[in-house]
């Protein structure tokens, strides 16, 4: 890639990453807090205890603040698709647009109807209808996330489509293959449980602050009890779905798995790294040891990826050489090809697309058919044709490796916090463990870091692809200047900063006020 293109791709990526991470500051809390509020309101309706109504109203207010500040921030991503990633936007065709449109309709109806009942409907509609509205908002926000995650999963595992050489667009031929792709299902459950866990830790952390301040103690302890139980169940399901995600990545994106583990040379019975430090100057095929220091579990990665302690896991160099198997976008197990061969076949596919257009201009149907055949035979390698050397197919190892391990370590820590909260709150000793209350409070920050780290692993780990194997970022960008993207980056950074300050200050003000008094 030339320098100008590199700058454009880097700034466009950075802007997209910033926008997505900012959007993700709000989404997980909405996903989980909505469910927690709905559970609390169910307790209120069943028991008639006014304490729960006050508790619901307090947490609902924080839900509302988070929802209001976060709403529509995802739309900026859609702006960026059209401006910075126009080749990508055209190439994905209706496959990406359809789930986003469904999500938009879902969100619109929820926000204009049931959310209003949830906030304005106390004492105006029946308890049952109000509860139903709260549940519908909670379920609806999660279903709304489903469609976004389906769109994202298609980029990771482009199933159920046909590439039309007439238009250079992918056309959906099997909606169920897109919706029920194993990657989508796993990504949805893993993401949703991460949101549930985050919201539970948020509730525990805020409650810990009240206990430290020795105020609203009954409210804080009861909230903690519920959140800890909900959070622990969610966290265990998060681990389970995380294992499922690793299996999917091993099958469909083996390079990402190798990057997550800093695994350059794989084999049978491969260990999993618990903690490690990578050598910064390590390059594929240089024969150097990739780690300065490494604490690992023998055979752990083989077991995680294949379910067999002696299973084969490919490293980065194995993938470059073609010594790996993968599941293609039709669900078939395939033997991998050497990267250089994939690049050659990719170039054939790209040339065939050009030949097809040329033949079409000349109305040469025979040449069109010939070009189409070459294109279809090599389409699975289309994106590799844009790479100049095999190393360009390797994501940033350091960022993928460290964020993956940070996510796992923080996830383990969060489970301990949830167990501690559950144990001490049910034994009636939570308020006496002041050190633990401080840990709980700061865990809010840690759970957000873990959640963001998870997305960094998912997205950085699949680079250079915007669509796995089919379109690298370098071919997906628009022909705009890097300077334009830089300008919008800084404008957006200012907007983000302002909104985050607004959210945090309004939240703190409301937390300081506390729940309504009886």
């Amino acid at each position, binding site marked *: 890639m030339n320098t100008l293109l590199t700058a454009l791709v880097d700034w466009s990526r950075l802007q997209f990453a910033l926008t997505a991470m900012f959007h993700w500051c709000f989404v997980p809390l909405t996903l989980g807090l909505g469910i927690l509020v709905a559970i609390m309101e169910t307790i209120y309706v069943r028991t008639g205890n006014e304490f729960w109504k006050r508790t619901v109203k307090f947490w609902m207010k924080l839900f509302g603040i988070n929802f209001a500040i976060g709403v529509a921030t995802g739309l900026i991503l859609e702006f960026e698709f059209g401006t910075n990633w126009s080749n990508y936007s055209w190439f994905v065709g209706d496959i990406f647009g359809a789930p986003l449109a469904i999500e938009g309709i879902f969100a619109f109806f929820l926000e204009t109807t049931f959310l209003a009942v949830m906030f304005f409907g106390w004492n105006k509609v029946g308890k049952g209808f109000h509860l139903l509205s709260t549940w519908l908002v909670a379920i609806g926000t999660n279903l709304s996330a489903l469609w976004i995650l389906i769109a994202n999963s298609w980029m990771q595992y482009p199933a159920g489509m046909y590439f039309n050489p007439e238009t250079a667009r992918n056309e959906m031929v099997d909606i169920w293959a897109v919706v029920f792709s194993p990657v989508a299902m796993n990504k949805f459950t893993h993401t949703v449980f991460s949101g549930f866990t985050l919201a539970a830790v948020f509730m525990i952390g805020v409650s810990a602050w009240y206990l430290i301040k020795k105020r609203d103690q009954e409210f804080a302890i009861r909230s903690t009890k519920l959140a800890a139980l909900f959070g622990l169940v969610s966290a265990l399901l998060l681990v389970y779905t995380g294992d499922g995600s690793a299996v999917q990545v091993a099958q469909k994106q083996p390079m990402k798995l190798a990057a997550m583990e800093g695994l350059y040379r794989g084999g049978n019975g491969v260990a999993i790294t618990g903690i490690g430090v990578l050598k910064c100057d390590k390059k594929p095929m240089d024969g150097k040891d990739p780690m300065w220091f490494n604490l690992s579990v023998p055979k752990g990665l083989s077991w995680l990826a294949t379910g067999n302690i002696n299973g084969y896991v490919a490293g980065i160099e194995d993938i470059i050489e073609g010594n790996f198997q993968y599941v293609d976008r039709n669900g078939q197990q395939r033997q991998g090809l050497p990267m250089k061969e994939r690049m050659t076949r990719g170039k054939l596919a790209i040339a065939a697309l050009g030949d097809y*257009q040329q033949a079409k201009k000349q109305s040469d149907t025979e040449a069109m058919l010939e070009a189409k055949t070459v294109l279809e035979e090599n389409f699975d390698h289309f994106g590799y044709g844009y790479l100049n050397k095999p190393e360009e197919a390797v994501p940033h190892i350091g960022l993928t490796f460290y964020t993956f391990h940070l996510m796992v370590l923080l996830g383990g820590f969060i489970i301990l916090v949830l167990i501690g909260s559950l144990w001490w709150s049910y034994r009636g000793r939570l308020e006496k463990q002041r050190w633990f209350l401080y840990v709980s409070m700061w865990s809010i920050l840690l759970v957000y870091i873990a959640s963001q780290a998870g997305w960094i692993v998912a997205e950085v780990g699949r680079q250079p692809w915007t669509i796995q194997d089919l379109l690298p970022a370098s071919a997906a960008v628009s022909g705009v200047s890097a300077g334009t993207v830089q300008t919008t980056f800084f404008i957006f950074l200012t907007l983000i900063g302002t909104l985050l300050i607004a959210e945090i200050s309004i939240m703190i003000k409301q937390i300081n006020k506390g729940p309504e008094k009886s």
Partner: protein
Amino acid sequence: MSHWIKRVYLFYLDGFKSMTVGKTLWVIIIAKLVVMFLILKIFFFKDALADYKSPADKSRHVIEQLTQ
């Protein structure tokens, strides 16, 4: 029917009137949407393919980009 519409209208009106922190949030939401749609979208986030009028022109441009 009109009775039903009036009830919905009053439901929203009362809800908006009785908001406390919600008023601040609405100001933020409106300001955010104005910045997004009237500034960012119009001046900074133009559709890069908007200059190509028909889908055929758009696809020709993208194919040129992809195959050059």
